[in-house]
């Protein structure tokens, strides 16, 4: 059934839940996430710090979550669940099927090893290259990630390169074995703003040239705009909204997505900061709210929201899924907002109505 395999999605995640057991309780970092990713497609995962983006990506890659962790659900890669694989079976996937670009290029390269060996070590193992072939492969890779003067750079140690250059090296390392799926976990948050765009463009170009699927994790909606096919907005370990990027930006329905959108003009903030544009803080994941997780911070909150969590359901466009009782733009939402405003609810009062993104022609991404 080869054509069956070719048509099946590359990655199919179903009800993934990741829980850390710590002395004070169980941290439910990912609470039932489902999505599919086809070959060669891109998915953006957006959410503020602590929403579980990294944990989700690392759960799928089965990388470094520690020993106090339980993951349930399925994450089928090429039709096979990765969550039940043994470590040695995972090693076969790592590098040649799934690879990852990390947030901080300062710490993700071995400080004692020259660029050349970092780039080619794994190539050599997979392809049995001799010295000069390995060198040529390294030069080609560095050229591909647009590192000027690759012959000289190969002899450099990581600390002799700038942050942007280092991240380019990391990308070269991740691409070396031609993975079919690349996770990029906030690949630009540790970099200067001017370099960020170059790195994102590099990733997009490599993704397209290699027809590789890519998951781009970020806290910045502005990063996924125009770069990914689909976008998943995560909040407190759950999916708030999931849609093709174009239709998400055209018709943003979740109050949390809307709040993220409002915070885009301020996105020069570093990673791991809370969003100033959203009042309150993310919920305690040891004891998350029974109702909608966003309800303590939502300007549109109603009694119903606090009592019952909204399911993720398709709305008008079948590809657009949303977990909210009263989507932004609906008359019920407007009524609820005015009522909250009148009641002096802080999160409603904080909304600067003049800049509020509205589906009918406001800020565009």
């Amino acid at each position, binding site marked *: 059934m080869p054509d069956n395999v070719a048509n099946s999605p590359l990655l199919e995640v179903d009800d993934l839940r990741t829980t850390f057991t710590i002395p004070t309780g169980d941290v439910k970092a990912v609470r039932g996430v489902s999505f599919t990713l086809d070959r060669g497609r891109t998915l953006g995962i957006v959410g503020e710090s602590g929403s579980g983006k990294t944990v989700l990506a690392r759960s799928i890659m089965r990388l470094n979550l520690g020993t106090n962790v339980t993951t349930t659900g399925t994450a089928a890669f090429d039709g096979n669940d990765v969550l039940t694989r043994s470590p040695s079976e995972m*090693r076969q996937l790592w590098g040649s099927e799934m690879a990852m670009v990390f947030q901080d290029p*300062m*710490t993700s390269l*071995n400080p004692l090893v020259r660029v050349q060996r970092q780039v080619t070590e*794994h190539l050599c193992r997979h392809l049995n290259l001799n010295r000069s072939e390995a060198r040529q492969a390294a030069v080609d890779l560095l050229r591909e990630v647009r590192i000027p003067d690759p012959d000289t750079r190969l002899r450099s140690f990581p600390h002799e390169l700038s942050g942007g250059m280092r991240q380019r090296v990391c990308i070269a390392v991740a691409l*070396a074995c031609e993975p079919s799926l690349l996770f990029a976990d906030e690949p630009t948050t540790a970099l*200067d703003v001017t370099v960020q765009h170059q790195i994102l463009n590099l990733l997009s170009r490599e993704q397209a040239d290699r027809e590789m699927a890519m998951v781009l994790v970020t806290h910045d909606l502005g990063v996924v705009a125009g770069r990914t096919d689909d976008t998943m907005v995560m909040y407190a370990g759950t999916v708030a909204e999931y849609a093709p990027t174009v239709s998400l930006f055209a018709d943003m329905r979740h109050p949390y997505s809307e709040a993220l959108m409002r915070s885009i003009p301020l996105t020069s903030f570093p990673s791991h900061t809370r969003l100033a544009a959203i009042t309150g803080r993310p919920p305690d994941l040891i004891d998350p709210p029974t109702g909608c997780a966003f309800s303590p911070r939502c300007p549109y909150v109603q009694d119903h929201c606090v009592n019952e969590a909204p399911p993720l359901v398709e709305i008008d466009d079948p590809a657009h899924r949303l977990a909210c009782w009263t989507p932004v733009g609906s008359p019920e939402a407007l009524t609820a907002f005015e009522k909250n405003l009148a009641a002096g609810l802080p999160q409603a009062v904080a909304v600067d109505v003049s800049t509020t993104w509205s589906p009918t022609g406001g800020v565009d991404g």
Partner: protein
Amino acid sequence: MDTAVDPAVAARRPWIRRFVAKMPWVTRFCASWLIVIVAAAVFADLIPGLADPNYQGFLFGDGATNEGPGLSHFLGTDNNSRDILARIVYGARVSLTVALAAVFMGVVFGGFFGSLVGFVRGKTDSTVMAVVDVILAFPGLVLLLTVVTLLGRRDLVVIATVIGFLSIPPYTRVARANALSISRREFVTAARAIGTKKRTILFREVIPNVLPTLLAYAMVNAAVIILLEGALAFLGLSVEPPTSSWGTMVNASRVDLQINVWPAIWPSLALVFTVYSLNNVGDWLRRLRSVRSAAL
């Protein structure tokens, strides 16, 4: 920020010159002393004009006991009319061999086990560390005396082996602590994420990053070992006479201390210089290392 140091320029300068250029002058002096004393110990037999350390000239009407520093014997002679300079140079062999044995066994075995258990954690870790704690709790002097009594001899090999063995546990602890934090660093995860085998990660990522800290520790530890050997020798528990050792020399000088202090002063100075130099160079290496990792 896109071009830090031009690597082409940096690579052209020989690394040893770059290294020395960063040393404060005290450290340069200390490093020179260490090089001189090691070279003298190794090539003692080849040094022209160096006397036989066990030649007792006064027995043959050739020189006196307890001579002060002078032209015929630079540092004077001891109460057996032996040349003090020669005895210090040959005595360095004992001190340095014992220190080298300790460092070698510590770095190789302690470094390996420590890095291994810090990286793999779990049961291996608790087992190895339990053994290490037992060895640390065991009184070293008792072990030394037991081995010496059992073997019935007290030569350099026995002393060096026992002290070397006792050095493994502290190195294991230092290596483990470093390996623990290095294993949590992102580049180890990054190596796993491209399918690197555990064994390769241990040897390529973890151990090379543990080694610099371990070597800086080794310098300081060598100083401790040299003092330890000196103390053992002073107690008469190091290598058997007439083989000279700095501690043995100080011990022997006690008898005639009122008439001649030189036989006590010279080996003590050699000991102090060497220990200070090891500490100074070790500290410098450690500072260099922490500055470098902070810059990364």
